[in-house]
């Protein structure tokens, strides 16, 4: 009996401890916000940002948060147009190799310190410094000495970015880079407060120590749950900021996200669950935002192994046999556009080249595909057998099954579809030993055709098919020398034509961004970049419901 009593004492004290812990854990996260004071904007993140260090972060989720708390020399409007950010103005030299940026007088860090040209130099040097181990270090490749510094052959101090005075920044380039301004909106190019790095070292990018120069400042970060931002009153354009408090909730499950939105816990979702899309389209017509975005879903060939190496006609036959319209209408069904080019529509200064057969009817395509298939030496009695690998996900599986059926029906080819875990697929794609055909996707890092075309150059790390064509490389190299945008565009389009004629990849569809946005959120504008800065949003009268 005594022991039982002892046991219950232990249990009760454990319960007490558990409740106390609850009290502690909520203490840090600004629990006043959800009940009193102005309401917070609640946004969803589909994954946890791996870092809020501008140079060390990598994911689109980290970039989304960083665009709220930091600002580059150049930034975007709510509609996705380039506008001056921390730089008030800039000039490009006639040869396109030097840009001179003039910073705003009133640009301030969240502690009131002025944002100087030296802060930008520090951030950009930090980006290329091998010690930082930055994922985006190669983005600055065209800046003088950047590549050599990344390779460890030169010192970060030798980077072609100089502070001419406190408010003047000069960027020197090795080649014309018409997309430089677009690059300078990317969080990896954001300035860093030198004092805070000197004081806190690598741990500077955390609540309490991270100083930001954007519309918001990092107030709290509960890993795995939430990132809390408060208005940065020192921001130069603070007068235009409407919402004081922004909370990013980490929600990895699409269905859970939708339920939280319905329960009133989220104002903006990061996506929409595919299973319920038709119902959502009907029930939430005015809150659903679907917009084209700069991303392509594709099947790639392993060009180093049979049966696809040196066999462009066979590749073309497989590409032509896929009816992309069926894929986007019956499977993805969320407004995706069928892809007949590698570069998505909507890229600045560019008109994507179409695959030659884009305009043909279904029957015409199939007829050509069948004759190409026979020409490659395959027939009913001797069918092509190959393997398509994709990473485990419902949508990928459905698309693979459809493609498998189309290849069988149109050509008689026998595809085996194999699903593997994402990291395993990445490994296999890289090794190029077991893969024959694989599923992948590519999203533009900046709004320029080069962001898509450059990865298919022979020496690009992201060139998973191992595509190699001297003519293509030469066209892109020539395009890189052009200052005149119209001429450059001709080279880029010709390069895409070459790429498509070689059928190194089968572009299937272009992604769309999908969000549910509550009616009380104002200022939301769909854009191809899928960037939605909190500073451009506002919260109207919240209808009755306030959460407990």
């Amino acid at each position, binding site marked *: *009996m005594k*022991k*039982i009593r*002892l*046991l219950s004492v232990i*249990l009760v004290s*454990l*319960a007490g*401890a*558990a*409740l106390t*812990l609850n009290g502690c*854990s909520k203490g840090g996260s600004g*629990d006043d916000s959800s*009940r009193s004071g102005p309401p917070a904007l609640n946004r969803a993140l589909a994954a946890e940002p*791996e*870092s809020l260090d501008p140079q*060390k*972060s*990598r994911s689109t989720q980290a970039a989304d948060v960083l665009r709220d708390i930091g600002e580059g020399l150049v930034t975007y409007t709510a509609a996705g147009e380039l506008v001056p950010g921390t730089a008030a103005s800039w000039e490009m030299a006639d040869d396109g190799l030097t840009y001179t940026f003039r910073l705003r007088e009133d640009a301030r860090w969240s502690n009131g310190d002025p944002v100087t040209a030296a802060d930008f130099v520090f951030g950009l040097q930090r980006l290329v410094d*091998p*010690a*930082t*181990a930055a*994922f985006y*270090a*190669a983005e600055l490749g065209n800046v003088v000495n950047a*590549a050599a510094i*990344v390779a*460890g052959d030169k010192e970060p101090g030798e980077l072609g970015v100089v502070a001419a005075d406190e408010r003047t920044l000069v960027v020197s380039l090795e080649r014309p880079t018409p997309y430089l301004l677009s690059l300078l909106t990317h969080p990896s190019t954001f300035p860093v407060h030198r004092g805070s790095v000197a004081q806190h070292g*690598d*741990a500077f*990018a955390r609540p309490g120590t991270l100083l930001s120069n954007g519309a918001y400042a990092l107030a709290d970060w*509960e*890993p*795995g*749950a939430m990132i809390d931002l408060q208005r940065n009153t020192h921001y130069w354009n603070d007068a235009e900021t409407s919402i004081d408090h922004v*909370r990013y*909730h*980490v*929600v*990895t*499950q699409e269905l*859970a996200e939708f*339920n939280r939105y319905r*329960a*009133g*816990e989220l104002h903006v979702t990061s996506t929409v669950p595919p299973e319920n899309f038709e119902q959502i389209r009907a029930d939430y017509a005015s809150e659903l935002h679907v917009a084209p975005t700069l991303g392509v879903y594709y099947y790639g060939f392993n060009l180093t192994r049979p049966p696809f190496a040196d066999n462009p006609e066979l590749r073309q036959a497989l590409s032509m046999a896929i009816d992309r319209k069926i894929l986007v209408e019956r499977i993805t069904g969320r407004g995706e556009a069928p892809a007949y080019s590698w570069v998505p529509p909507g890229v600045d200064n560019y008109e994507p080249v179409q695959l030659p057969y884009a305009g043909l009817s279904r029957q015409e395509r199939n007829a050509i595909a069948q004759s190409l298939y026979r020409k490659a030496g395959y027939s009913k009695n001797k069918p092509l057998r190959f393997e398509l690998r994709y990473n485990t996900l419902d949508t990928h599986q459905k698309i693979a099954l459809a493609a498998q059926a189309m290849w069988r029906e149109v050509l008689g080819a026998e595809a085996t579809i194999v699903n593997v*875990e*994402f*990291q*395993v697929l*990445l*490994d*296999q794609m*890289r090794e190029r030993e077991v893969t024959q055909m694989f599923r992948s996707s*590519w*999203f533009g890092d900046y709004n320029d055709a080069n962001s898509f075309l450059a990865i298919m150059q022979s020496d690009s*790390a992201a060139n998973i098919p191992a595509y190699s064509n001297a003519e293509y490389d030469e066209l892109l190299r020539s395009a890189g020398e052009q200052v005149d945008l119209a001429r450059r565009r001709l080279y880029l389009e010709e390069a895409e034509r070459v790429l498509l004629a070689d059928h190194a990849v089968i572009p299937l569809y272009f992604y769309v961004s999908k969000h549910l946005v509550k009616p009380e959120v104002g200022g939301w504008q769909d854009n191809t970049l899928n960037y939605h800065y909190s500073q451009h949003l506002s919260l109207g009268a919240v209808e009755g419901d306030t959460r*407990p």
Partner: protein
Amino acid sequence: MLRYTLRRLLGAIPTLFLVIVLAFLLVHAAPGGPFDDERALPAEIEANIAAAYHLDEPLPLQFLRYLGGVVRGDFGPSYSYRDYTVSELIGRSFPVSLQLGVLAMLLAAVTGVSLGVVAALRQNTALDKIVMGVAMTGISIPVFVIAPLLVLLLAVQLQWLPASWTGSDSGSRLLLPVISLALPQIAYIARLTRASLIEVLSSDFIRTARAQGLGTAAIVRYHALKPAMLPVLSYMGPAVAAVLTGSVVVEEIFGIPGLGQLFVRGSLNRDYTLVLGVVIFYAALIVLLNLIVDLLYGAIDPRIRRR
């Protein structure tokens, strides 16, 4: 008792070492690396990143470096949370899992035992069948079905409770996860208690107690319940460990920043240090909980203590 405890704790060291070796080999054997992505990195950048995390060193050296850190209590930096160390992450998420787990196990123990006793005393009546039927359902329906249903009903439709961890700052955010976690445990404990109590109630010493004129309530309270709790207790040890280290599914559904979520994220991202850290922590916790259960066994059953 103290010597026994010390001996058991020392005996855990080789176990933990073995766990570390195996876990280290397994995570490194998994295809892919922590920094692989669809946007593959240029070779120089990959080399810089590998160097920054010592991933370019030979595996034995990496192991020794890691082991050296563990001995000093340093589990290394996380690869997927680059601003945090593994120790910090475990330190932040364990209290969350602990709090949920303890509350869920308390709810499960109290409800489960009560239901089990009722069912055992009303054996083969309608009440027994109902309780056991509900328990069977609780075991059969997986938590990833129950939890979203609870959310739909109580958070979306009725709006009584928050749908997620970050949906509220008050304790109400604990309710749905705790219930979801406890339901299958309640069912299991109720069945265990019922079976065990029925067996005890038919043994000789209970018959003696009855012959002496004791009422059923007194017999259950003073004589039958304690021995009937032994199987329940041995079930609770590992169950508590499992619940404390976080239920992956419940944490994902409610967005709870607990250990389970951390572990899954670590595994998917090949975050070697994070996975290893959680595995070692989990192993140490199981060793500790098993020891506690063994000590409690002794406390409840004098026969074991005397041996």
